[in-house]
């Protein structure tokens, strides 16, 4: 197998980053309602410097997820984030397509 990870494959990227000694968080879409840009199970991987690969939406909420992920990399405590047009943060990072999603963010340990 090649050592070069496929950048379209967040889980491959996550493993490579971990083995390079980087601190890594993994975000996963766990629930969707209405129209959602990425299906349940989609991944976004983030390192402690805010580098990322993959997606949990069509680019609408990744910024917010990355910011939360940096805190989760520090604390180690997983968190569930929810985004949608009904959300009070909708004007900032809501989904333009009108759906709602929940994203589970966890640190990769050891």
């Amino acid at each position, binding site marked *: *197998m090649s050592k070069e990870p496929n950048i379209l494959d967040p*889980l*491959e990227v*996550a*493993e490579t980053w*971990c083995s390079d000694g980087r601190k890594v968080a*993994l975000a*996963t879409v*766990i*629930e969707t309602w209405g129209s959602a840009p990425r*299906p*349940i*199970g989609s991944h976004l991987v983030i390192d402690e410097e805010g580098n990322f690969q993959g997606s949990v939406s069509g680019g609408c909420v990744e910024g917010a997820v990355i910011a939360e992920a940096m805190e989760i990399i520090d604390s180690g405590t*997983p968190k*569930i984030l929810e985004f949608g047009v009904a959300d009070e943060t909708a004007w900032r990072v809501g989904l333009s397509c009108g759906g709602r999603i929940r994203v*589970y963010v*966890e*640190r*990769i*340990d*050891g």
Partner: protein
Amino acid sequence: MKSSTLQAINAARAARRAAVVVTDLSDGASEVFLEGASFPPEWDNLIVEALRSGRAGVAAVEGRSLFVNVHLPPPRIVAIGAVHISQALAELAAVAGFDMTIIDPRTAFATAERFGAIELLAEWPEDILPSRPLDRYTALAALTHDPKIDDYPIRAALEAGCFYVGALGSRKTHAARVERLEQAGVPADAIGRIKAPIGLNIGAASPAEIAIAILAEIIESLRRRDPSGREGGAK
């Protein structure tokens, strides 16, 4: 998630094995289960259904909130024979999201002009398959009518547990094929898994229509397969 869990998921995907990851959303503890293994009884239904449908989701089990994620290898079609039906099947396979490979040792058939960008291997199946093994997420369609070319990959596909094994030919052609496979020692239940005449019975007549009937039968076999591994690749 532990990095060892991540490595187990990636190893399964690299080996083209289906994997289910169950995460307890209250504490983040997660476990990986591979297709064909035995699953904890309280999670068996969840895991089997995830493998069958390929769909991830949240479930409540015994008061715990679980996220069940599923990683299935991408399905692919291997067609034996660079024939007219394969040309139509190659176009349809791309639309339906299948990777496709065509194997035919007859270089007059296996030309880029006839097949464009589709992966085309002008080799004997027995020479090329050992280095590119068939697996449970592969559908094999034997389309040459020629026992010298078709019989070996049919046997290899049955042994590999391919989720679909179809063979072109009339009932008479297939009866002769069954006889050859029996004489070669292939078990009767394995021979019974061969779809022949190939394709759903929709009265298909033209090569393109036959390709549609084959692709529909492949999709049916993929979506209705037994994911426990207890029955080989297909029902």
